[in-house]
């Protein structure tokens, strides 16, 4: 059992994130409420009202404005945080690219929720997957504890001089955001020391050294080269993510890497998952292991930058892999599947890969569904070929009303 370094509390994922934000004590928070993120904005606003933080809280009229206000504050040299979900993240979309393009280390919690239509407020990963190309580092969290741990690390990762990129920390809407869990909170002082003081490279408010933020950079300019600089910063973040994960481990007893392997090294088949479904998957693995099945789990934590090399190393010994996507891209496979399959292509001897879409719009995802995936994998492993590359877990029978 890891050493306990802080206080053990029973709180929701949203409350855990709000507590983390309180301890980080950012200079500016600009946020707009949206289910299931609302509690984060609400609880943090309470901390501001109660004088527990020094944060300037900007109540805005939309998420487009929230992210825009974050940009302005970041240009002024502030440490900035926000939180959103689903339609809110979609409304921020154009500003997400500006945040990463201007190299502002804004830290945002995204509480994963599907996108309308039909209208639905429950969990899937369509929101963050839609923003996967926006130049933000993306971290996924299985539990309230991980969401809390991840936002504290995100501040250090994004602000690192080698990186200077915005970071999005994801957790599952309702499943994690609204479920009460055991969470170990670090001491306020420990978090304060861990995140340190933000030293921006430039500040709009430094009138002694005036600078121009966000200039035009057209055909005769260097847009392409600036994008390459951004790509290189994302590449450099790999080493920083691992370093901060180790440092956080030394502080908390909970070390983090690109992913977590669960009974994977001696497995023959495995599933790859993001966020809370990892818990269900591990539970199912324990059950099936008792029955003698060689099954395992790889829980991906870092989706951007995508840990291609490390993932290949972790998966190369397997006979078959199922990638579980809680998002779709109509017309092709799930987004995570596409990336995992592409990563494995360069291996000479590689596992067979299949895609399962699950849990859209918060559809329940149970051990029996994971078992279905594992049984399909064991069959593929036996036959040595994939007959159905894409399938769906947990669909309901539809009764036709005439």
């Amino acid at each position, binding site marked *: 059992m890891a050493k306990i370094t802080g206080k053990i509390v029973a709180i929701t994922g949203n409350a855990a994130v709000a507590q983390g934000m309180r301890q980080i004590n950012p200079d500016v928070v600009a946020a707009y409420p949206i289910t299931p993120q609302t509690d984060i904005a609400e609880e943090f606003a309470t901390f501001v009202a109660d004088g527990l933080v020094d944060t300037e809280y900007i109540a805005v009229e939309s998420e487009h404005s929230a992210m825009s206000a974050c940009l302005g504050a970041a240009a002024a040299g502030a440490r900035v945080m926000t939180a959103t979900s689903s339609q809110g993240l979609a409304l921020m979309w154009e500003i997400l690219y500006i945040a990463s*393009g201007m190299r502002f280390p804004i830290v945002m919690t995204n509480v994963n929720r599907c996108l309308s239509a039909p209208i639905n407020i429950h969990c899937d990963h369509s929101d963050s997957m839609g923003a996967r190309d926006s130049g933000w580092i993306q971290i996924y969290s299985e539990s309230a504890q991980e969401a809390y741990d991840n936002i504290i690390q995100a501040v250090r990762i994004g602000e690192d001089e080698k990186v200077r990129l915005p970071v999005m920390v994801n957790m599952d809407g309702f499943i994690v955001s609204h479920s009460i869990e055991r969470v170990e909170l670090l001491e306020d002082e420990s978090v304060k020391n861990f995140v340190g003081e933000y030293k921006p490279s430039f500040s709009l408010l430094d009138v002694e050294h005036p*600078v*121009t933020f966000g*200039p035009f950079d057209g055909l005769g300019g260097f847009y392409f*080269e600036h994008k*390459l600089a951004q790509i290189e910063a994302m590449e450099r973040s790999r080493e920083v993510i691992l370093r901060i994960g180790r440092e956080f481990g030394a502080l908390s007893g909970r070390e983090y890497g690109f992913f977590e392997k669960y009974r994977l090294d001696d497995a023959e088949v495995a599933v790859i998952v993001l966020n809370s479904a990892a818990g269900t998957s591990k539970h199912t693995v324990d059950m099936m292991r008792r029955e003698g099945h060689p099954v395992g789990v790889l829980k991906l934590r870092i989706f951007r930058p995508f840990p291609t090399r490390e993932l290949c190393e972790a998966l190369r010994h397997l006979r078959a892999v199922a990638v579980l996507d809680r998002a779709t891209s109509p017309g092709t496979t799930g987004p995570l599947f596409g990336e995992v399959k592409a990563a494995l292509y360069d291996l000479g001897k590689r596992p067979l890969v299949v895609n399962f879409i699950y849990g859209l719009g918060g559809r329940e995802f149970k051990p029996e569904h994971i078992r279905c995936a594992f049984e399909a994998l064991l069959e593929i492993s036996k036959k040595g070929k994939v007959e159905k590359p894409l399938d769906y877990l947990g669909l309901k029978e539809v009764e036709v009303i005439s």
Partner: protein
Amino acid sequence: MKEWRAEKLMPGALIPLGGTARWYKTGSWRSEHPVWNEETCKQCLICWIYCPDGAIKVKEGKVIGIDYDYCKGCGICEVECPPEAIKMAEGGEPDG
């Protein structure tokens, strides 16, 4: 192919100077140019209020001409001028 050196660029395309727009002479975008008639001008300064680019030159409270370095030739001054003392003319002249 030239060697790529990211460190030569400022992060986020930042320019380590202020007020750089003054060096970006947008007058070259113009396809029509305003011609100001000092004789018929009533010095009401409505053109100065409406000009979106601040391209009406004013000295001691009086219009003294057009700043062709920045005038984009939108023609708002012509539309707004009560005594019709500003008329748009073909081409981007007079600064070539």
